[in-house]
């Protein structure tokens, strides 16, 4: 339900490209948000078992190496947000994305013997970026914190806003076909 709502209503939003659930089945396994300081913000296993969560943490963390490498390699040219395929390890492939404010988004796809269209991955990334943007835009997030706290901690793990952010991420994952639609409620 929510997934459909997202796809149908998102066309009017500038930052939320429609994630077409029908054409994509990328085997999205996990999503990770990493702060500009390389601190983890959210690592979420969207399909498969939660036991793999630690593995996804490791994958997300190690992908920072490749992301750094890509950024350094592209330092002359303007850096594209979409960093593309980072690496594949065991049974997953890792894709990366970096926002202009250096927030890194990493998605982990289960390896299947099929071509992964960059356009599909990009649309997932854009939707995730939008989800983060929406969640972080809440001005009340810093209500009880000192003003000079780094923005990293805006979406602290466990805060109510984090839960709603997680819901947004799940919504994107659902739209990308990783979660069954029913689990929305």
């Amino acid at each position, binding site marked *: 339900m929510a997934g459909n709502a997202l796809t149908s209503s998102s066309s009017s939003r500038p930052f939320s490209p429609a994630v077409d659930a029908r054409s994509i089945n990328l085997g999205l396994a996990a999503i990770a948000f990493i702060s500009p300081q390389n601190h*983890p913000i959210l*690592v979420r296993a969207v399909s498969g078992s939660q036991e793999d969560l630690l593995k996804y943490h490791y994958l997300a963390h190690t992908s920072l190496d490749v992301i750094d490498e*890509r950024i*350094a390699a592209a330092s002359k040219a303007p850096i594209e947000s979409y960093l593309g*395929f980072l690496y594949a390890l065991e049974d997953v492939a890792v894709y990366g994305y970096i926002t202009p404010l250096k927030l890194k988004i990493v998605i982990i796809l289960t390896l299947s013997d099929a071509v992964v269209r*960059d356009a599909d991955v990009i649309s997932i990334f854009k939707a995730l970026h939008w989800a983060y943007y929406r969640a972080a835009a809440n001005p009340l997030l810093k209500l009880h*914190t000192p003003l000079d706290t780094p923005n990293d901690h805006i979406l602290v793990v466990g805060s109510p806003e984090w839960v709603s952010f997680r819901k947004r991420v799940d919504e994107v994952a659902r739209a990308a076909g990783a979660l069954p639609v029913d689990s929305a409620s």
Partner: protein
Amino acid sequence: MNSYPPELLVQLAPVMFVAGLDVPPPPESTPSAAPGEPPSTRPLQDPFTLLTIRLRDALLSQRTAAIWQPDKSKTFQTVLVDKDVRFPPRKIPLSTDPHSLVHSPLSPLTPTSPLHPDGLIAPIWVRKHTTLVPSVFVVFIRLYESPPHHMPRSPLDQPHPDREAEERRRDAEMSAEIALRKKSTSERGIKLTVVLIASRKMLDDPALDTRLTFIRRQSGLDYRAALFVLSPVSPGELNEFIKSLQQALYEPAVDYYTSHSKRVRRKRNRHAQAASAYVLPVSPLGVASPTRPLRPEGWTVRYEYKMACFAEFRGEFEVALKHYQDAYSSLLMMFGSTAILPPRTKRWAEAKVLADCINLKICKLYLYNNEHALALSQHTIHSRRFSDFSRGWGIGDETFEFWSWIARQHRVFAELLEHGTSSTLILPAHKAAIPVPAAAPSGLAELDALRVLGLNPANALQHPGFYYYMAAQATERRRAQFFAMLESVEANGANLPGFANEKKVDHSGIALELYTKAYELFKKHSPLSNGNGQGRLTLRIAGRIAGTYYAAGKFDMAVRFFERIAKTYRRERWGTMLRPLLATCVTILVEMLAHGIDEDEDDDGILQEDLLAVLKSTVPSSHEEPLIVDLSDSEPIFATSIIFWTSTAFVGDRVAFQLSLTAPHDVAISALPFASLAIYFSHKEEPVVVHHDADAVVSGKVQRVDFGDLNPGIGAQAKGCLRWGKGGTIVFVGTVSSDVPMTLAIKRAVLALREGNWTVEIPIDPAAVRDGPVSNPKWLFNVDPIKFAPLRDGSNDHVTVHYRPHRLRVSMTHQSPAYLDEEYPIIISITNEDDRPLDVVLDVLLQPAEIDETVNDIRIDDEHSQSLIKGVAIGVIVPGTTALKSLYLTNTGGDGDRVLDISIQSRSPIVQDTSEVLLTLSVPTVAPMKVDYDVKYLHTRGPLPGLTDLHTYDRDYWDDREGGEAIIRAQMECVGPWGLSVETVRLVRKNGPHARVLECSLDEDEDDVTSDWLPGDEFAAICRISLSLEDETSEDDVFSGPGEFELSWRRILPNGDHGPLCTSRFPLPTLQPPRQSVIALLELPSSAKLHISISAHLTIRNHHPSRTASLSVQLEPDAADSFLIAGQRSARVPALLPGSEVRLAWSLIPIECGFVRVPRFRVLDKRNAGTVSPTQQPPGIEEEGIPVRVVDMRREERAKMVDEALALALEDAPSGGGGGVDDAGSIGPVLVLPSFNDNMSTI
């Protein structure tokens, strides 16, 4: 790769047998040594021996057996053999039936073959073709050379008869030998090449050709590339020879392998046809029989594999790839049926090895061709297919065999990549291909192109480190499965196949080796490193290495790794990953307490139990030294907050503080036996110690421990409960004070835990923050009910203690506003209201004024400055007394405010107890007097000196002819708020070259003007100034006034006293006399008597510096005129030279009384007519000339210089309108009075 037979993996290349290169046994018996050579020659220097050795080395180094050799250069794999080497038998007849078909000894059909009856391909077959059977056979033979004394002395000599016969005999022997060899090689289609080694001299022998022809014919050698002659040459030339030898022999070699291929293909085709009709000849009951022959699929594999190998020998990699693939797919078909290949048999194991090797060959050939994705895909498919098969064979992923095999596949693939990357292979870079953004796809083709954009991540080839890593992981799985099986084996006592072998395997060692290789490769392939040279990927591998060490029981190594890894994870706050790291590390269990956390409720308290268990079960290494667990880099256990009641305090004041330690809410630590808490303040060494009070009862979430007032410098003790419930808080409260100014803060606290022999100290850094929402510390107001509230002035984590400020009262007395030019007194009064004597020092800073042309000055005592007077010592002021200091401010220039910054620094008898009072004083300053000037200019009266008057050329001649005089009236007004007592007013003359003061009204009563001027009073003075103009007119003829008025005055203070004497100066205004070229001055008496004639004089002056004036004068009587005029009415004045004048006279007789209008005089300058621009003048004037202004000398008064045209315009107006009396430029009337003593007789 060592786990596979090297024959099946090595890169195949054409094989060349080389015979006859045995190093001859040393020296004296060497038949080749020429007898004529000097005996000193060492055997190695024998050119032929040297040549032999060089040949051996050069040939062997042409190609070394390696797995990765993609180059297709025409080189041979050289095998050195004996001249009489025998080839293995091609076919051997079946012993039982001599009439049946013969087969190769390696054929499955040969009962003695290791492959009998159903083997596929054995490594020995490849070995046969690489070491036992060549494609070309090269024989090096020494050509017989006759001893030198048999040689002819000259070409003309007859050949020695013995020689020829001997040569012929030797050659025939050799030819026979070669022919024998040739026979055996020809049987197998092997090319035989003979290289004759001869001395250089022999090459020049004319007989050589005939000998060679003879040998060739006798031995039956081919005509092409079959016979070479070589003499000892340099290594360079030798290489050239070997190169050309290989070039020449490459084609026969390729032919050799091609013919093999053709033969095999024929056999395969024949077999394929037969296969359809093939009936299993034996074991009709389907019972597995040891003599069951190879099935058709097996033959296909065999033939395809052979063809692939022969293609590889030929360097035709594409063909080889095709055949290998066919062989591989046939092999898969065989594996697909357990009937064809029953699992866990010898043949099955051989086939598996073969499949793995073929897979590797396929991968390699793809990589030769840079088909990275295909290679990886082949590798993946192979792993997947055999994983599927394995499940069918009962060795699925729950067995160590399976993981062992997977690990081997990854490892071999990684090794292949490593071989490749170390020579020619370049790994692909997987950069993001950015899709064309937003370009609307116009056609279907573009849409397709967009769809294709992307890659299959499963086929993205990466550097070998990844595959080593996967191999290592598989090895770990293998180990895990092995241990699982070990348990079940021990339980059941069953013995499984391969288990005994597996027991001997050092799994950890293998895994470590693989991880280490992966680590090195990741390090090598990572261009970046984050700071300390550690990439995150390498850290991850290091983590796995540590985990392996840990699993292997090498705790010390594990901890060392963990420490290094944990650093990065901590820094980047990847707690989730850090936790398992720590979890595996026993000695840092305490740290675990801080990090907390498993989300599982079941694990509640498990950490503290672990810790307690460790503490209870172990004995510390040292009983004296406490174990210090420094958590400064990591998450602290407690959320610490420190708050002081105020942020600043005075010396001696008591300041309340609260230190609260909050336990994490997700970890239970209530059982931990904390014994004491030591709190270290910044101002003293001794801590304040809280000891655990065993009797205290934990009540509620918040407890309060009160220290009371803490004396500075002395350690204090308190008792309190040091047990925290989940999320519980203990607040330590107390007050502190200081006798000296300082910053009071809590530096750190140390929590001590005592259990058995252990003393664990956990330092608590108050600045450390736990992960999670950060909030400002709050003050605990009440325990029951708990009431925390933030303090109004924010959270103070420290207190700054100051001295009490000095109570000084400072006031300033002055009579504002100040006058300009006045020395303005400001009295600074400093009163000590403190109870301490204070030493006071004064600084005064005069701010730079923003008003133009002001020069201000301050003075204290004798010290003058225009900006700063520093360090004026006032001295010690005893409490209750006042010190006064006068400050004088002198202002000149313009009005406005002067700003003074006054700093009063005081110091109490205690050193360093200083304080400063800063005051800013703004003094409005006004002018005491306002002076207005009124300036009028007059023409020179009296005759001008003549042009020829030499006197006028004197240096000191005052030429006021043109300038005339100026009358200056000065009006001074007392404008300030205070009265002035003026003592003198005088004009100070400063005569200049153009202006000098003639007289002044003040000259006479200079000293009589002493008087008091009250605000609003005015005073006037007039002075007359003579002006001397330059001949040349310049644009601005402005002269400064030739003097200034000087006033000496005192301010009248409100109490009637007079202030100090001040002097103000007002310079005369600047002068700008008007200039005219021609001017007419009319002299008339002011009054006249009726009927008595008066004379009118008109003086016309030409002031123009160079131009002569041509003038006409008209007297225009009017009917209404009351004068009778005697004199010319109209006259032409003779040319008036520059600087000269002419005086005309008339007599006028008034005939009426009263103010009588004077007849009008008109002077016209004809010469000047042209100079006026025609646009401004009516055309008539041009003929008449320009009217010259006629000035009435009686009432002459001119303002500053005006424009000449404007002056003319003014002149014109009255002439038209009949002239008004009030017109400044017109002629005034004459008052005519009746003359009483006049009788009419004069008429």
